[in-house]
């Protein structure tokens, strides 16, 4: 429990901010909640140095305070209960209001870990005391322990279903304390502790990632923050040599094709836990598609090819297929993917490849090979909710 200081320089903050802005990302900065006064209230003097500087640069950013407070005691020997942390957030909220640059800044928290017993208690007391000042409730989720995870875990419908229970637990606590408050995933991935070696950075990780995106949207979690874009461990989207990994390509396709409106969808003739189906309005910023189009995405956890037939009202529609399959002899443990038969890799250091669709004629069945996933844009569907 010994800690040494580290210094974040103004230039480092400048570099971080410019990276976010140039990548069209919104920066949320997590402040250190473990700096305490004698009476255990949060000591905000260090944070004010950073707030002063960012305000002087007119940086437009949001804020958090603390990370996984449920394990503060284990990690640092300092125990902060939910009620005290809530008051610290109120303190930070009023501090932010002192800066004209941060009058409208958002505040998120408490970034608790998975909703187990003591974490649920902490979250409840935090929301009771500080819930009114946060814009969204943030929590963290991982399916498995990176050191013990197996290939079977990554292909298990039962493991994927555990996420539903975790979401329901969190939504229930929020509903009972700050009803209507938005709930976001502030940090999430496949396996904790840096990921599962030779699994989290391969094609097979896509089942957890794509299913989490589908379930989160369906259950009302509007923002999912991936651990990590680039960094330590194997659950990164981009490796140490800046090579995109399968989950990067999956995320790119998702952003290009999937809109934010979630539609109801059903399945007949197979186990929906093994053939997992999601349906959204198509991303209406995609110039290739128009209002009313819908995007279906499917995950096949059967060890055989599944042929999916669309319902009659969609029978005469043209469909664009985006089938992602592993590339290379390692199959689903490969770190490279092919889209409709074309291997996806950067054209050069800065240029992404084209994401080439495969048009299917009306009435086609959607053939999904064993252990695979893909997207299907159904054109001219004229879905009322998407117009």
């Amino acid at each position: 429990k010994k800690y040494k200081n580290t210094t974040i320089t103004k230039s480092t903050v400048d570099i971080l901010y410019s990276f976010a802005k140039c990548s069209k990302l919104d920066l949320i900065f997590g402040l250190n909640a473990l700096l305490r006064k004698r009476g255990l209230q949060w000591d905000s003097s260090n944070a004010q140095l950073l707030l002063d500087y960012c305000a002087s640069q007119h940086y437009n950013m949001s804020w958090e305070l603390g990370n996984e407070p449920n394990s503060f005691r284990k990690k640092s020997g300092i125990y902060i209960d939910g009620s005290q942390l809530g008051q610290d957030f109120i303190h930070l909220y009023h501090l932010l209001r002192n800066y004209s640059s941060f009058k409208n800044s958002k505040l998120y928290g408490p970034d608790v870990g998975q909703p187990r017993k003591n974490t649920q208690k902490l979250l409840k007391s935090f929301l009771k005391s500080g819930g009114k000042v946060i814009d969204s409730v943030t929590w963290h989720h991982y399916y498995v322990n990176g050191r013990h995870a197996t290939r079977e875990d990554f292909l298990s419908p039962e493991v994927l279903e555990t996420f539903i229970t975790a979401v329901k637990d969190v939504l229930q606590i929020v509903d009972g304390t700050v009803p209507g408050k938005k709930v976001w995933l502030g940090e999430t991935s496949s396996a904790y502790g840096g990921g599962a070696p030779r699994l989290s950075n391969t094609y097979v990780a896509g089942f957890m990632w794509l299913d989490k995106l589908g379930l989160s949207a369906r259950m009302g979690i509007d923002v999912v923050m991936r651990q990590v874009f680039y960094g330590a461990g194997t659950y990164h989207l981009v490796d140490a040599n800046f090579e995109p990994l399968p989950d990067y390509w999956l995320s790119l396709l998702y952003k290009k094709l999937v809109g934010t409106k979630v539609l109801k969808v059903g399945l007949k003739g197979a186990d929906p836990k093994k053939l997992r189906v999601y349906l959204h309005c198509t991303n209406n910023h995609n110039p290739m598609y128009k209002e009313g189009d819908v995007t279906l995405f499917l995950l096949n956890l059967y060890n055989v090819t599944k042929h999916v037939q669309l319902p009659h009202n969609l029978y005469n529609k043209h469909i664009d297929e985006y089938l992602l399959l592993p590339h290379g002899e390692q199959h689903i443990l490969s770190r490279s993917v092919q889209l409709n038969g074309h291997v996806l890799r950067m054209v050069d250091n800065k240029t992404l490849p084209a994401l080439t669709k495969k048009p299917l004629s009306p009435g086609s069945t959607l053939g999904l090979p064993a252990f695979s996933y893909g997207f299907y844009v159904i054109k001219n569907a004229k879905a009322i909710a998407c117009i």
Partner: protein
Amino acid sequence: STLEDRDFWESQVNQGICGVRSIPTAVEELLLSQWPIQEKILLKEQYW
């Protein structure tokens, strides 16, 4: 500011916030050489 800050960032500012000038090789090599050690520390802490 750190060595990288000075060598890279302060010269970068006049490029405008998204001016894409590649990072000096010396700085990139320094950062990449530090990364394996950094990654070990991060992973140990994350797992802990």
